[in-house]
């Protein structure tokens, strides 16, 4: 028995040894195959590296595009469901929603820049008027504040549709031409675009439910300062109220809530300054501001100038009015990420509004004296925030 095992072991050892010897020869078969394969891979990569890279990037864009299409469709469905639920229309709003999602705005020519803000303002007013009429037709039984929320919801869906169409355009163009530079353009900014798309998708929940959003910190600060004081309309979708703080007369203005609206803060500030014949010591604007990476959500910063975003028309009006009456402008910014701006308000941002209120009060005490008049404007979308 033992001798049989010994014989097998010796036989195997001899066989293995001879196999190893043959494998180790540079001209053995497996070695040849390996060398050929790697040489082939090297040559293929030498000539087709860019094409392989382009195909890989196209595949990633395609995957993202599919996800964005899902969100775009979800946006449309949410809008239709909300209109049916709130507006109780007599006919199916789907064709109207689809038409709305294709709406566009042509910006005025800026070759001769004189008066371009007025032209842009005119176009924005027409756009706003058209949206209001469209929503009124879609949801005839909705309350004005609910109509504002539907309008915001439709705008979020419209934005998602534009994102989808632009990415699809570059994807198909890249695929058609297989030009790596066209493909790279969209591939490089995909993570940033995705951040914005995710933000808009969060807006769907906020606007369909009427929840306060990150951009609403300005109106919340204004509402906290008002603290239940009586308000009156001062411009389109803008209210103002007065309080007394440490002997100063403080006029506070914000968009009229609780429906989703940013109002016309430029007109409101201009009207308030004209009403007071320019006898205003300072103008403070409070708004949400984009944070840099590394900054904390809800950080407060104070500065000078008009803290207001958007296309620039309202900012222009505020600056014009303040310059005309020679009024210093102070700004309080509440820092937040792009993902917070139109998403439901997060706790650190709500807590930050108290800090911003203290900041505004500090500015009033530092830069005005008893008997002075101060204007405070809470800038932003007032969805879910009354006054």
């Amino acid at each position, binding site marked *: 028995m033992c001798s049989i095992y010994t014989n097998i072991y010796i036989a195997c050892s001899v066989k293995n040894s001879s196999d*190893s010897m043959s*494998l*180790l020869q*540079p001209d053995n078969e*497996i*070695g040849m195959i*390996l060398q050929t*394969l*790697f040489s082939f891979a090297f040559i293929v990569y030498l000539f087709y590296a860019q094409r392989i890279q382009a*195909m890989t990037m*196209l*595949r*990633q864009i*395609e*995957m*993202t*595009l*599919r*996800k*964005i*299409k*899902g*969100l775009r469709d*979800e946006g449309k469905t*949410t809008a239709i469901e909300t209109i049916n639920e709130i507006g109780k229309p007599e006919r199916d709003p789907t064709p109207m929603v689809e038409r709305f999602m294709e709406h566009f705005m042509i910006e005025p020519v800026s070759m001769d820049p004189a008066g371009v803000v007025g032209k842009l303002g005119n176009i924005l007013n027409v756009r706003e008027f058209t949206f209001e009429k469209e929503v009124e037709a879609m949801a005839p039984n909705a309350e004005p504040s609910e109509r504002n929320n539907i309008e915001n919801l439709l705008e979020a869906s419209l934005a998602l549709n534009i994102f989808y169409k632009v990415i*699809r355009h570059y*994807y*198909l163009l890249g*695929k058609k031409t297989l030009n790596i530079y066209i493909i790279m353009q969209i*591939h490089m900014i*995909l*993570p940033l675009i*995705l951040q914005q*798309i*995710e933000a808009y*998708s*969060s807006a*769907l*929940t906020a606007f369909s*439910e*009427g*929840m*306060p959003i990150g951009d609403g910190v300005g109106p*919340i600060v204004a*509402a906290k300062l008002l603290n*239940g004081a009586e308000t009156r309309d001062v411009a389109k979708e803008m209210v103002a109220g007065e309080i007394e703080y440490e002997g100063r007369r403080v006029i506070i203005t914000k968009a009229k*809530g*609780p429906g989703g609206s940013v109002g016309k803060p430029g007109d409101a500030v201009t009207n308030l300054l004209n009403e007071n014949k320019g006898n205003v010591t300072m103008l403070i604007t409070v708004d949400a501001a984009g944070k840099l990476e590394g900054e904390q959500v809800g950080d407060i910063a104070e500065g000078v100038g008009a803290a207001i975003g958007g296309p620039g028309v309202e900012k222009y009006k505020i600056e014009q009015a303040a310059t005309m009456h020679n009024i210093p402008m102070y700004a309080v910014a509440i820092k937040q990420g792009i993902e917070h701006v139109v*998403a*439901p*308000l*997060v*706790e*650190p*941002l*709500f807590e930050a509004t108290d800090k911003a209120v203290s900041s505004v009060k500090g500015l009033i005490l530092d830069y005005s004296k008893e008997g002075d008049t101060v204007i405070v404007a809470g800038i932003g979308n007032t969805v*879910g*925030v*009354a*006054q």
Partner: protein
Amino acid sequence: MKRMSGETTPMAGGATQNWITLAAMIIVGALALVSLYMGFQAYGNEEIEIAFMYMIIGTSGFIAIGYAFFRPKPTSMDPLKTKKFDVITTLECPQCNLKRVRAFQKGDYIYKNDEPCTRCEGKMVITSIHTRKEEKKK
């Protein structure tokens, strides 16, 4: 890469391509393993030049697999979905300062006179609406 079925609808199957990638990685891995084995054998027989060549090939194969696994990807495979938010509404009674927190209900807004106070006869006012703080995973 699969083709788009039309001008508007992306149709490529990401799952199929994952299988192809996985199969390619297995093949490269097997070849790299064989190459390394032969490299060690050659080294044992003091054929340093051949051993060096095989080891370079084997190592390159494993580096390629590692890169495929850990390369930075601009998009994740997870589908994008609308986030669900846990939003809470805080109500306060201005008369007796009773505070109550409940889940957000449609129609809630800040400074809304909402429901009667359970302690006194006053009306509770909504003082805050925000998402619940996410607890960090340990």
